[in-house]
């Protein structure tokens, strides 16, 4: 068939979209089933009744009271509160620890760095079931010895969850850090940032880069100046400007943009990208 190119492309597009929508329905079906089941009586769920529950007279009844029960009898509020506290604290603690460690691993080649990253990976290979009894007994003893209650408290759970969450985060974040051009940091160092300051101004932008998937991030490898990590304003350069040319009244950010743009695009994309850019 001698269809023009754009018609063919359009037809392929539509076919792909239809397949995608079918797949979307299949994916959401279990979730929808879960929501639907929440409106049935528990006995009907257990025997696997397909439709909504019916009362003795055969009329359909929607069991909204499941949701009332949840708050009144199951004490859902307490569990929600526990989850929020534990999850929130774990997130903060694990993010701090893993960002620091991942940054150190991706930027510095120091004695022991290979050993450290291999140990992190090795911890992932240990069956979690092996931890249960030793950790429990350690926590009991720790509580008795120091008086800091880690058994049966928020603190204990937060510590354990962080410990299990940090290794994986380090591996993921390391890829992101590897995808940020080093030139940015070198430029920042020239402008007088300390290593800690460099970390402080690069890391948050990185966090933004990994939650966003916009097409505008697509080319940040070609042009470090447009990297999302730079959306955060860098501080005024510590070094007094020498009054020359461009950087007179510019903030540190501009100076770095200028410096970064003069660098050539990265050629080792494959190595640099890691799993970054998410």
């Amino acid at each position, binding site marked *: 068939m001698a269809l023009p190119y754009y018609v063919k492309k359009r037809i392929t597009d539509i076919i792909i979209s239809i397949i995608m929508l079918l797949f*979307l329905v299949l994916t959401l079906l279990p979730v929808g089933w879960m929501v639907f089941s929440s409106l049935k009586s528990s006995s009907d769920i257990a025997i696997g009744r397909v439709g909504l529950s019916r009362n003795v007279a055969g009329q359909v009844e929607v069991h909204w009271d499941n949701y009332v029960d949840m708050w009144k009898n199951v004490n859902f509020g307490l569990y929600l509160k526990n989850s929020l506290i534990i999850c929130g604290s774990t997130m903060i603690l694990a993010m701090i620890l893993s960002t*620091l460690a991942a940054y150190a691993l991706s930027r510095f080649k*120091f*004695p022991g760095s290979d050993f450290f990253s291999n140990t992190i990976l090795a911890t992932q290979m240990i069956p979690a*079931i092996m*931890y249960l009894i030793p950790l429990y007994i350690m926590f009991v003893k720790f509580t008795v010895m120091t008086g800091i209650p880690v058994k049966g408290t928020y603190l204990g759970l937060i510590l354990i969850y962080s410990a299990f969450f940090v290794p994986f985060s380090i591996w993921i974040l390391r*890829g992101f850090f590897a995808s940020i051009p080093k030139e940015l940091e070198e430029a920042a160092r020239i402008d007088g940032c300390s290593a800690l300051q460099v970390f402080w101004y690069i890391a948050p932008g990185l966090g933004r880069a990994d939650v966003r998937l916009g097409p505008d991030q697509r080319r940040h490898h070609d042009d470090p100046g447009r990297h999302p990590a730079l959306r955060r304003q860098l501080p005024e350069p510590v070094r007094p400007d020498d009054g020359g040319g461009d950087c007179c009244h510019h903030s540190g950010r501009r100076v770095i943009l200028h410096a970064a743009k003069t660098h050539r695009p990265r050629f080792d994309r494959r190595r640099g990208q890691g799993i970054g850019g*998410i």
Partner: protein
Amino acid sequence: LKRPNQQQKKGLWQRVKQNRIAYYFIAPTALAMLFLHVSPITQGIYMSFLNLNQYTLQSYLLAPFVGLENYYKVLIDPTSPIRIGLFEAVRNTVIYTVVVTIGTVAVGMVVALMLNRRFWGRSLVRTLFLFPWIVPTYVTGLLWGIMWLKEGGLVNVLLVDWFHLLPFKPSWLTGGNTMWAIIIPTIWRYWPLSMLMLLAGLQTIPDELYEAADIDGAGPWTKFWMITWPMLRPVWFILILFGLIYNTYSFNIVIMMFGFGAGFPGEWGDLMMTNIFRNSFQLWNFGTGAAASVLLLCVMIMIVNVWFRYFKRAEELS
């Protein structure tokens, strides 16, 4: 931020001093890992040489030392409960891990390719695709356990009553079908993560490569295998690595699907982890459970090493 080749020439102590800041950065993590990973694991390995059961648990590490008896029970002793189910558990774990890992990456890849186009409602569709990922694994097990029911389970209702794809209602939670009943929910739960990571990887591939391939007259199939797949290697390397590890230790979905945490998954559904859990916490043989965990750990370390080596060689060849 120094060049590595300059560092090589200096002494060890000098290199340590030069990278002081890096040590400050990893110190909190290293300290925490010492207490929460290294120490319990050392105790766990020691536990595998002890006769630790409900009577001796009180004395914990002072329980009677029995040497390799626990390992004998796991591998050889034909009367011990863990040895009886060992073959099935190993077989199921291997099949399950391989199929789930490959399936997760494959489904994620296909959907990522479909999403990597410009169309209306792209971000909405992407968000909706992430839905399975927010269902907790325990709930996934419960939910699919109900969906697989023979009478009135959603799967059978759809397959038989609505679309008439099968002439009879198969029972999914007994016999050989159990394998599918645990594999499909796991893939369903985990593929959005690989989709997200592969999609991010896709967006870093420069368009020029595809344009050049177009000029050379390459079809979509060739373009995928010659450009997309090799360019995504860092992504699928990590996905498969962690997929192998996590799926071998998969526990939540399977245990919740059978008897809501108390049942036996059957000879085609029993995995290593459920097997060890049953022997440790339902039969109270902590020493034997620890021995089985240590053996599993050794096997995992070997597998991961092989995967790393394969990857390194592939990297050198390219």
